[in-house]
């Protein structure tokens, strides 16, 4: 028996629930050397901005226990190059694209959504709300304020062609992730991706200097999985009908199953692509085996399973 793995995220259907996380798979080209990019649910492309961006100075990464800190700072070629060069390549190989966009304000997000909407073959637009809001005096991210986050989502939705789902990508380290989620859904997000990296820091104990340039970085990898699963669980509890893509430290099929039981319809693999370039294919295979071993007919049946009765079993 083979479980039916199809997954609905708003208006789009993916053949299976395993996708890549934004910024952890480029636009699929490099990973295609290690796996068939058409075989996974979708590739979420690195957050693209309107203009080319050079990103942050090095050192950009440090290893931490079961995780890594990074500060790449949205390095990328800008949306036009992305749409002309990277997206067509991915689609030509039969891949599905969730296009992540990053703007410096609602206007720029809207323009990005408009241009991405005009391209053929995109499966969904993901709104990276962890960008710093230049109009915020404290330099906070859009995600830190549900009102500003909702304004961005609303603008993106209105500039995105109907039928193309808009996913809001949430941060975990916010005052109240459920409030943020509800605000984004209220602003007509079709689904939510959660979670982005969590702010943290490491000091290099040889030099006694911050290990990544600028001090703070984003923590990712299995270390943050409990935070991410907690966010997915709480948001699914509050908003059971909203499609969620869960991510944060997925390494194995069992980890993917954990997110699905907490309430995610799809699961994204991020940092693990760095350590295991064929990870997405492996996670999908392991997940399928686990579902089959449980006799699950449809992957959708395990979504939210952890909510269905009390703890223990």
């Amino acid at each position, binding site marked *: 028996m083979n479980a039916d793995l199809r997954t609905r995220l708003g208006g789009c259907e993916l053949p299976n629930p395993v996708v890549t996380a934004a*910024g952890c798979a480029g636009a699929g080209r490099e*990973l295609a050397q290690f796996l068939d990019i058409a075989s996974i649910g979708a590739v979420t492309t690195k957050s693209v901005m309107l203009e080319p961006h*050079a990103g942050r100075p090095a050192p950009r990464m440090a290893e931490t226990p079961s995780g890594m800190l990074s500060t790449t700072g949205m*390095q990328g070629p800008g949306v036009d190059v992305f749409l002309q060069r990277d997206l067509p390549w991915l689609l030509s190989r039969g891949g599905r694209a969730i296009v992540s966009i990053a703007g410096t304000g609602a206007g720029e997000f809207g323009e990005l959504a408009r241009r991405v909407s005009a391209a053929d073959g995109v499966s969904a637009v993901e709104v990276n709300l962890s960008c710093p809001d230049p109009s915020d005096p404290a330099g906070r991210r859009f995600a830190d304020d549900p009102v500003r986050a909702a304004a961005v989502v609303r603008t993106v939705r209105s500039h995105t062609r109907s039928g193309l789902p808009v996913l809001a990508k949430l941060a975990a380290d916010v005052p109240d992730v459920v409030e943020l989620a509800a605000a984004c859904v209220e602003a007509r997000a079709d689904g939510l991706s959660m979670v982005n990296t969590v702010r943290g820091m490491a000091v290099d104990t040889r030099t006694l200097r911050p290990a990544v340039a600028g001090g703070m970085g984003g923590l990712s990898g299995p270390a943050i999985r409990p935070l991410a699963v907690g966010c997915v669980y709480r948001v699914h509890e509050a908003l059971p009908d909203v499609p969620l893509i869960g991510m944060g430290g997925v390494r194995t099929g069992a980890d993917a199953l954990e997110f699905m039981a907490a309430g995610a319809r799809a699961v994204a693999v991020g*940092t693990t692509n760095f350590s295991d370039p064929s990870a997405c294919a492996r996670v999908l295979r392991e997940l399928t085996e686990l579902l089959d071993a449980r006799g699950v007919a449809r992957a959708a049946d395990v979504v939210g399973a952890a909510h269905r009765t009390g703890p223990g079993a």
Partner: protein
Amino acid sequence: MSDNGPVQARCPVLNVRRVDAYYAITVVAPGIAERFRSGQFVSVAVGGDHSSTLLRRPFAIHDVKPDYGGTVEFLFSVRGTGTAWLSERRSRDLLDVVGPLGRPFPLPRDPVNCVLVGGGSGSAPLFPLAQSLRRRGCRVDFVLGAASADRVFSAITARRIAETAVFTTDDGSFGTRGRVTDVLGRVIEDCRSDAVYACGPMPMLRTVTAVADAHGVPVQVAVEETMACGTGICMTCVIPVVGEDGITRMVRSCVDGPVFRGEQVRFDDVGTIPFDALGAPGWKGSSAVRAAESARDIA
């Protein structure tokens, strides 16, 4: 999925040897061996399935042999947790290896004179390079340096392969006291070198490039940046490099490198985003630059 790109494999360890201050591990990896060109590297998962150290460790390929369908050797010194773990591997253990990664050293068409400059473990990729150059009829000379005698890499092999081999150590325990760059100018002149190949720490590569420049000799450098993925997807390994078109870009040293033309690397700006780099804060590219970008190949 691609025939000349890198592969990922669980490779049996053939043997682990101590070589002075280094360990040499040979793994059976036919897919990597057959694709290998000198200057390329492997990345190795460390610590086992339940390790808290997630990231692979990159190592230059030091040797490939046809035995057992194809073996790959890399050398390393114990630096931190990953290399300590690797040093405890034994024959028949399995290592998860990805490779060959990165752009190889470009080889001259003609049988020219080449000097190969290595610092510490940075000398590793120069040995297969020396072999390739010899096969093309090039003259090869070595300048190898290290902190102390036991860190000078494969001095005997170097002497065997090369026309001449000069050694330097910081403490004078072997060869000339000093740095490779102290002797490089003289070697270039004595050997009438037409090209320099160098691998080692950034400050060394910068001085090697300056010396080669002063002698009007082209230089290829292989850099060792911290790398989270080694495959081009994480964007953590970037350095500022000037393209053929004169534009500085933050390029990935894992896939756009590790080998660069020395004068293209903006050594003084490593660790910064130069103000004139493509996409730097305040940067405003012309529409021509933008158009060119779309045409550039990404991998």
